């Protein structure tokens, strides 16, 4: 294709977008609404998924240290724990710390147990690399010296892992289904706008235009409509996500939970929406005009 012809096609598609005012408006809003839905759902589901993962990772093994353990024994135990492959990190929490937590959670009555009356153990809180190996780690730890007991929430944690797996799978299915819906809806809108212009395509063909000469402006026009249509949901979602992110993160501060950071998550989401818009817009329009080119 000559450079001259290429520029002509670009100019032509902009002109067409302007002159087809209402059709352009209809197509752009259809793309915008669809992608707004898809984008919001993806943002919500991915964050639910992230929180689910955080919950799982918050499950840790509590290793109660035998009362008979001396300081060296305790240090040796910590070393043993840290040497385990699946262990990410080990935090020591003294019986005093533990009691403070209980008081913080259940009330001052437990203050009675402070000092020598404290019935609690010193504890190592062991976080594992992956949530699935928590029970294995707990089993291994139980056999170590100076361990009074090791537990990880047992059945409750196992149940939690199951629920989270389901949440994750359902989320993935919904996201895939939504993307398919978006593709279908956008392609269909483009098809309708082009159908209204089939006589134009026929005339172009009768005047001696080759298929590609007709196709290029339509393809570029489709891409532009997809792009403009995607810009609207992209800006809405970005604005809401960025402001929502700050608000929610202040609530979550000090916990182990966090939303997906705007960079890279929001950036990827924006790229995905723009790509869907542009690709479906251009491919959709060039496929839709195909059958009208047979003149």
């Amino acid at each position, binding site marked *: 294709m*000559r450079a001259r012809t290429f520029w002509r096609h670009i100019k032509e598609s902009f002109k067409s977008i302007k002159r087809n005012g209402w059709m352009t408006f209809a197509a752009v809003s259809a793309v915008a609404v669809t992608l707004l839905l898809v984008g919001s759902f993806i943002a919500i589901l991915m964050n639910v998924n992230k929180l689910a993962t955080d919950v799982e990772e918050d499950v840790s093994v509590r290793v109660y240290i035998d009362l008979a353990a001396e300081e060296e024994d305790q240090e040796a135990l910590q070393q043993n724990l840290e040497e385990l492959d699946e262990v990410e990190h080990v935090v020591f929490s003294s019986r005093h710390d533990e009691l403070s937590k209980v008081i913080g959670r259940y009330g001052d009555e437990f203050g009675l147990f402070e000092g020598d009356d404290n019935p609690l153990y010193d504890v190592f809180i062991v976080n594992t690399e992956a949530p699935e190996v928590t029970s294995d780690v707990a089993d291994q730890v139980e056999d170590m010296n100076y361990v009074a007991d090791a537990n990880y929430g047992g059945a409750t944690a196992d149940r939690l892992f199951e629920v989270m797996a389901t949440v994750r799978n359902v989320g993935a299915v919904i996201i895939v289904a939504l993307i398919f819906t978006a593709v279908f809806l956008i392609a269909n809108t483009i098809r309708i706008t082009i159908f209204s212009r089939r006589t134009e395509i026929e*005339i172009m063909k009768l*005047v001696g235009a080759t298929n590609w000469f007709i196709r290029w402006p339509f393809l570029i026009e489709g891409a532009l409509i997809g792009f403009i249509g995607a810009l609207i949901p992209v800006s809405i979602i970005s604005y809401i996500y960025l402001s929502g992110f700050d608000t929610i993160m202040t609530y979550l501060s000090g916990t182990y939970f966090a939303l997906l950071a705007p960079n890279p998550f929001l950036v990827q989401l924006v790229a995905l929406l723009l790509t869907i818009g542009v690709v479906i817009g251009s491919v959709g329009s060039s496929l839709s005009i195909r059958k009208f080119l047979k003149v």
Partner: protein
Amino acid sequence: MIEMTNVYKKYPNGITAINGLDVRIDQGEFVYVVGPSGAGKSTFIKMIYREEVPTKGNVKVGEFDLLKLKAKKVPFLRRHVGVVYQDFKLLPRLTVYENVAYAMQVVGKNPKQIQKRVLEVLDLVGLKHKVRMFPNELSGGEQQRVAIARAITNMPRVLIADEPTGNLDPETAWGIMDLLEEINNQGTTVIMATHNSDIVNRVRHRVLAVENGRIARDQEEGVYGYES
């Protein structure tokens, strides 16, 4: 030169529109195609620029053999055959100027050449002052003249006019006729399907009468020959 030998056209619905037609039209001729409605006039004309493909037979337009012509090459045939339609077939969202220019952009002419030639042909059809208007802002006669300007802008060897005066009042029709004469005088073959007996009888040219899918009468300086 256009040559059809033993041409048949049967539509999928079973109607045989062209039934063993032979004709030869030389470069530079002016030919009227007449005949009752449904006799095959339109099909005959459409086969010249390959809107319809014959079921059987031979159609040659210049160096193009239309039965062997691949779909991809059809646009190149159409650049040598200008067509003026009864319903004008102008692009509704393009201005008068752009409609004519489109036919030249298709060929890949440069913008300077295009501008010069488009204004030239619009001047010829007397519409130079309406270049920026859209088709729906023009009268029928004016739209038909834009269509003619578009058909001749690439200097085709053949100009086909399918009932170009069908939708126009008599006075406007004569204006169109003068234009076609002028184009013919420049050496372009003009083939005009028409129901206008007045024109055919007063401006004498070769007449091809199509009936039952054949050439029933081929007459130099002929007359219309039907009740109108």
